[in-house]
């Protein structure tokens, strides 16, 4: 690289360093433990599935892992007739096992 370029160009190495720091912080936290975002996602979907019949194709999950916070976006299409009407027999079973 010549001297002129040093003044002219915006450096990309700091961007690379920041991206790696965020990524590795998340990857290291996953090793040995379970990924919090993944756990949240699984449990939220399980709760939803308890109440409505969820079409797997109608679920979109987006994540954005950030430095100080991450976002988890779960988009579930709930049709009007999707509500699971609890059957009396099923309810009894739950009480019995509790």
């Amino acid at each position, binding site marked *: 690289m*010549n001297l002129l370029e040093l003044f002219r160009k915006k450096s*990309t190495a700091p961007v690379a360093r920041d991206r790696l720091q965020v*990524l590795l912080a998340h990857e290291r936290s*996953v090793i040995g433990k379970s990924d919090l975002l993944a756990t949240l*996602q699984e449990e939220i979907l399980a709760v939803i599935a308890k109440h409505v019949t969820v079409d*797997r194709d109608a679920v979109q999950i987006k*994540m954005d*892992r950030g430095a100080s916070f991450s976002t988890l976006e779960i988009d579930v299409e709930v049709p009007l007739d999707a509500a699971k009407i609890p059957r009396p027999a099923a309810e009894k079973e739950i009480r019995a096992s509790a």
Partner: protein
Amino acid sequence: MGKVLVVTSGKGGVGKTTSTAALGAALARGGENVVVIDFDVGLRNLDLVMGAERRVVFDLINVVQGDAKLAQALIRDKRIDTLSLLPASQTRDKDALTLEGIDKVIAECREKFDWVICDSPAGIERGALLAMRNADVAVVVTNPKVSSVRDSDRIIGMLDAKTLRAERGEKVEKHLLVTRYDASRAARNEMLKVEDVLEILSIPLIGIIPESEEVLKASNIGSPVTINNPTSAAARAYFNAARRLKGDQVDVVVPMQRPGFIGRLFGRRVA
């Protein structure tokens, strides 16, 4: 029905992932529907080079095992909406990839996309074989160095023997992509010449990518060079390679050294 392209090399560090991202973005910018798939289980990097590392939810193994639908695992590129990424798994066991599972995922991708680009891991083990298994077309990435050329020869042999096409008695269409080509070293006869590499490997040339700081900058930022700096010499070489993949007749340009002011003062580069 889309075409399946494997980007492979045998040797590591020659530019498979960079080339996968750059070719994928070049084809997608030309209006093709493209998915790039990372086969490097445990050492994924295509997500990072594409700038999608923060958005990975599901991966190839999730889809193969049925934990996620293909549509849920695909990450749509934020810059080009005809470009998608299917990441590799970083944490799971690579033995979870079964032949049948891979074949099914690739078949589904073929229906949805014009190009299915498989980024092979280095080596000649299971991962590399899985990446090339369904290929119709192969881009063999080679540096003008003896070790790289030797490994490429090995991989070319495997493309002719260990792919589904080979099993059916058909040929995989093979192309040579020379990367990290240093014009000044070539001029000084310090590097294998492209003609030498071509003569040894005897597969057609699809492009010569110059050693370029633009490629490094693009990966720092997380953007394929064909998006980040489309007018750079490296990006233009990738665009031309993408056109050749589509069957256009484009002459291969050998990158020439154009010394700048200081370069002219001092004659040649150090290192």
